[in-house]
């Protein structure tokens, strides 16, 4: 067990290194952040040069990468014509630098948004599992029935639906049309009504549509997966034995079958995390939700390399760790799997 975890964690190091290298080269060239620093006024050429030196953007890219990785507090940097000791600690010591747009530490910015994204993703994940598993079980037990066929067709629509399209449909129906018809309608933008303030009820109401959008596209894959897993289990010998012993049908399904059929869902959750995050980027931008996805888009627009890097690196790290975690949980739950 310990050896397995160590091996997986060691394998993750070169992976993270490749990710950081690729992303660093990309984010250094997403645009020049200094040109827009003067606000409405065009920036003066000598200010431009001074800012570039101060931010370390005039250094060769490999040196910038080294500074980003391990910091520059071991070497002299040129600030305003004076040679002083660097102040950056590098990401290996938890310092992701300073945002070029907001002039605040990147981590402060990111951590202020993480809870908002989790507020969308955790309820979405709960809904996805509840609906995905129950639809899957139902479809499997009523295989080839009318309802199964309808659910199958519905899940194909879910698999093929771009998340922005379902978001737009929801907004149009539940905000625009409901308002038009004089019915109580859902708010389309933001986290709370500024006039009312950030009360839990307000946030909950504003969460309904983004969470539904994210959940809708993922329920489909979970229910398909659950259906085939359940069908597979129901044909096993031990289920036949349980039935032959005269156990009640619901008991066989809920206790004998479900326990094994639901296991692969753990793996699916591990694979699904990137998809959820992707859904969050688009839904957050449509619903004006102040989460990580919006932060990413806004700072990508402003060519703010440090923030973009930090978000993608943290997300990739989360994906890798989550993958290892789900593999471990799966192995713990299923004694047939040995770790070596």
């Amino acid at each position, binding site marked *: 067990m310990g050896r397995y975890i160590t091996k997986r964690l060691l*394998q993750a190091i*070169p*992976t*993270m290194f*490749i*990710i950081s290298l*690729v*992303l660093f080269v*990309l*984010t250094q*060239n*997403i*645009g020049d952040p200094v040109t827009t620093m003067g606000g409405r006024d065009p920036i003066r050429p000598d200010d431009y040069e001074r800012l570039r030196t101060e931010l370390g953007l005039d250094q060769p890219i490999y040196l910038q990468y080294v500074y980003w990785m391990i910091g520059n507090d071991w070497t002299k940097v040129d600030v305003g014509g004076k040679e002083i000791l660097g102040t950056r600690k590098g990401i290996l010591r938890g310092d992701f630098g300073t945002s070029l747009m907001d002039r605040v530490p990147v981590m402060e910015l990111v951590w202020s948004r993480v809870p908002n994204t989790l507020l969308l993703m955790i309820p979405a994940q709960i809904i996805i599992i509840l609906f995905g598993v129950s639809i899957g079980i139902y479809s499997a037990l009523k295989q080839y029935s009318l309802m199964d066929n309808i659910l199958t*067709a519905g899940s*194909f*629509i879910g*698999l*093929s*639906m*771009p*998340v*922005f*399209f379902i978001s*737009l449909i929801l*907004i*149009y129906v539940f905000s*625009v049309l409901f308002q038009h018809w004089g019915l109580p309608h859902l708010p*389309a933008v933001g986290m709370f009504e500024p006039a009312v303030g950030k009360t839990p009820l307000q946030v909950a109401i504003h969460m309904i549509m983004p969470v539904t959008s994210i959940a809708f596209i993922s329920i489909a894959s979970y229910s*398909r997966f659950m259906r*085939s897993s359940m*069908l*597979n289990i129901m044909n096993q010998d031990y289920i036949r034995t349980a039935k032959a012993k005269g156990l009640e049908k619901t008991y066989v399904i809920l206790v004998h079958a479900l326990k094994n059929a639901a296991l692969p869902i753990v793996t699916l959750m591990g694979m699904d*995390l*990137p*998809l959820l*995050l*992707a859904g969050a*980027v*688009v839904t957050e*931008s*449509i619903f004006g939700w102040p989460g990580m996805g919006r932060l*990413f*888009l806004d700072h*990508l627009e402003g*060519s703010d390399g440090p923030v*973009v890097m930090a*978000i*993608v690196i943290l*997300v*990739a790290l989360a*994906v*890798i760790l989550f*993958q290892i975690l789900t593999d471990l949980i799966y192995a713990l739950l299923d004694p047939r799997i040995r770790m070596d």
Partner: protein
Amino acid sequence: MDLEKTFPEGSAEDLEAPPLSLSKMAWMRFRRHKMAMFGASLLLFLLLFSFAGALFFSEGYANYTNTDIRLTSPNSAHPFGTDPIGRDILARTIYGGQISVIIGLSAAFVMVFVGIFVGSISGYFGGWIDAVLMRITEAFISIPRIFLVLVMAKFFSNKVPDITIYGSTFSGSVVVIILIIGLTSWMSLARIVRAEFLSLKENEFVVAARSTGTPTWQIIFGHILPNTIAPIIVAATLGVASAIIGESYISFLGLGVQPPTATWGNMLDGAYQYIQTAPWLWIFPGGLILLTVLSINFVGDGLRDALDPRSRLI
């Protein structure tokens, strides 16, 4: 009844049906798959809409702006309505469909090319080559695609000039989007191909080819690769669907194909501002994306069942 006529040759051997070729058997199984046949017909109809529709409207008309008729709701002159600068949405969905389909097919081609290359080299040679290639594959899988795609789109934005092919000018961003989508989607195919190669390379026909001095590249691409064609076809088909969705995501967020070239994705960019007043701006392109992706997914599912019955998910 004249027996001689019904069975002209008469011998028992000739009475047996000729063995069906693999492709004929696959076609038989595909034809029985109702949803796949439905998907194929729907897809054919959508392709007709995009490519035959171009016979009725010129591309100039699709890009023609007339602010006098901005945001008119669907009527007899403009069945799908007009957009905020008065362009006809029907004509734009026709030309946008062409670009979206071209992007889907080309990106899937890039994906298949890279996926086969990485997967076959990795699986055939093994050792440190495999280790390095698989770490790279893992790295690309671990970055959620949308982040990588958006960073790449921003990286290439405004760096590519327009391209003129056969008299019509394309925004250079079309090529960029194709490459971006192709280069961020090859990973799972590479893993599939690698797994197939790992088991196939131990077979006798490979040993035989090697012992007769067949060059390595010919063993890889001529002897082993044809045996992995079924999962590749399925992955390529589903890759087209995911590329069309991918393009629409990037374009929806404003980093995709640049106007005036229309795609279903970039027609949706900005439609959100008119959600109350002009729903036709997003209903038609969005609906077409959904229908196209849906029909390709149906076809992909049918192909999976038809080409490789073992992999069938009951």
